[in-house]
């Protein structure tokens, strides 16, 4: 058995043990929580009424009597009864089933959060396992890069919280440099095509931010409804700009590295290749990826608004109002990201050609 083989099996074993260990932990971690956790042992439907709201939406309202056992704290093992009410759509309250674990709400008698940690850990492991199986080394790198980037972002935001509102853009700017350098070096190593992609990514990201900023300034932000941005504790404009900067970064990196690798490969295959030919092939590659990349961003942003759109429509809100309330921020993000993606194509092309020109001069 050679060393590589042993190493591989060691890794599989580690992943397997990590999986089993953490799953056991999340199924038995009740004592680590301060909030009371309950497990449903019996549910009885006590009432079910048909309801029609002011907008002619038909739904039904169900009342359940829940018997549940306390899983942690001083009263562990005690059984309590409580009432749970949900509607058929389950838009705000959930139907509880036998076996569901939940946290007791602060009032001590109603259902709070569901205990979701076990599902989160399960999905996280599935993600790791599938990426390792399909991607091998590259899959492992994507998992690591997700984790590293998430940590950088979290630390960066911690620093932001302790500083003034305006510091977010500077902090995001520094994080972006870190994200780009780390992710691209991890993805394609230390070489000229990586350097090209790094420079191109940074230039394009800041250029697209500038364009978005000027556009917002010129139009006096007309058409953007910040008030519907969910979860705001701070100045929405700044959070929006920060999100813009980070949101398109992945797509811009993708375009930059795809273009620079193909252009450098063409050069390596034929050292005397004419710059005009390189330019033409580079542009062709760019044209091919521009459409799908802008689509990726578009769907990642816009899909999240579907539940809110439905709620607005069902409450008889007019189409235009509904769309502008819910989609303006997401659409602005997708459009600004798209601008970044398209800008990356010529920027990467010219930086690659600049490096190749210097190399050809040395030959």
């Amino acid at each position, binding site marked *: 058995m050679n060393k590589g083989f042993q190493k591989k099996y060691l890794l599989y074993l580690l992943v397997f043990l990590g999986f089993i260990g953490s799953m056991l932990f999340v199924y038995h971690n009740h004592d680590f929580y301060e909030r009371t956790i309950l497990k449903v042992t019996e549910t009885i439907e006590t009432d079910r009424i048909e309801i029609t709201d002011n907008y002619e939406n038909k739904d039904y309202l169900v009342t359940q009597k829940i018997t549940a056992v306390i899983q942690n704290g001083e009263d562990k093992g005690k059984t309590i009864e409580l009432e749970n009410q949900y509607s*058929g759509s389950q838009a705000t309250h959930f139907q509880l089933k036998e076996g569901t674990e939940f946290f007791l709400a602060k009032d001590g008698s109603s259902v709070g959060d569901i205990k979701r*940690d076990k599902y989160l850990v399960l999905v996280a492991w599935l993600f790791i396992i599938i990426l390792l199986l399909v991607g091998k080394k590259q899959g492992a790198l994507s998992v690591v890069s997700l984790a590293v980037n998430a940590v950088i972002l979290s630390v960066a935001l*911690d620093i932001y919280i302790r500083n003034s509102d305006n510091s977010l853009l500077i902090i995001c700017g520094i994080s972006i440099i870190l994200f780009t350098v780390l992710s691209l070096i991890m*993805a394609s190593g230390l070489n000229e095509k990586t350097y090209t992609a790094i420079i191109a990514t940074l230039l394009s990201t800041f250029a697209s931010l500038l364009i978005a900023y000027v556009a917002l300034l010129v139009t006096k932000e007309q*058409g953007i409804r910040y008030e519907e941005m969910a979860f705001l504790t*701070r100045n929405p404009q700044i959070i929006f700009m920060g999100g813009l900067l*980070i949101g398109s970064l992945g797509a811009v990196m993708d375009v930059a590295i795809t273009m620079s690798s193909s252009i450098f490969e063409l050069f390596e295959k034929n050292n005397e290749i004419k710059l005009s030919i390189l330019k033409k092939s580079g542009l062709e590659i760019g044209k091919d990826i521009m459409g799908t990349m802008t689509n990726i961003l578009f769907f990642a942003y816009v899909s999240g608004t579907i*539940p809110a759109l439905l709620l607005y429509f069902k409450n008889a809100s007019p189409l235009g109002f509904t769309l502008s309330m819910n989609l303006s921020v997401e659409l*602005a993000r997708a459009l600004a990201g798209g*601008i970044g993606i398209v800008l990356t194509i010529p920027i990467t092309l010219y930086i690659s050609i600049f490096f190749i020109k210097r190399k050809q001069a040395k030959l």
Partner: protein
Amino acid sequence: MNVLILLATILFILMAVVGGKKGIKSFIALLLNFAVVIATVLMMNDPNANPILLTLVACGIISAISLFYINEINSKTKMAFLATIITSLLLLTFIFFITEKSMIYGFSEEESDSLTIFSSRIGIDFVKVATSVIIMSTIGAIVDTAISITSPMREIHEQNPDITRKDLFMSGIRIGRDILGTSSNTLFFAFFGGYMGLIIWFKDLSYSMGEIVNSKVFSEEMITILTAGIGVALVIPIAAAITAYHLVSFKHSKE
């Protein structure tokens, strides 16, 4: 002037200048996809419609726009289309299961505060809606990965017509591995950018680790990111297998 119109105009000009005819097509595809999303949501309004079925149809149309309209109808786009549909189906089953189990559907406590003026008893099954949202956020990336695999695989097959099915499959997998990192990164950062407000919210209101992990919003966002990653990885073997099967068997039947 409206900022969205200004940004859209800038994007259109850039796409037309850089991409020429194909750039204009890509911009039109973006508009068409937007129309598909809105039409799907409008159809979901019907309480008798099944949101998951609607989403599957929408995914089919969206992939057809990205593959057949921007590119053209040929064997590589057809195989990418098939791979996208199969992956979406597999992923849908998994997402539906996990959404129902982890109860990440509906509006969270934090969100419902600002939605109190609305009636939330609207007779639409939010378990299915949540499933649709997750699959829709990933569909763009799945289509992109699928075409990035089938297209070079056909080139390889054309250059080595005697390649065995297994070798062709393996080269497809290798191409997939090279793009896995960047495709998943694209999605991760898109979500990070969108969730920044949320993370700041958690930090500002000093939620404890336990509260964050079990809250509906955080679980929902994390599960979306992770399933998106799973989707991008899953489409690789599926697209490689379909292409290898189709190209090699086609050749043999001709002989």
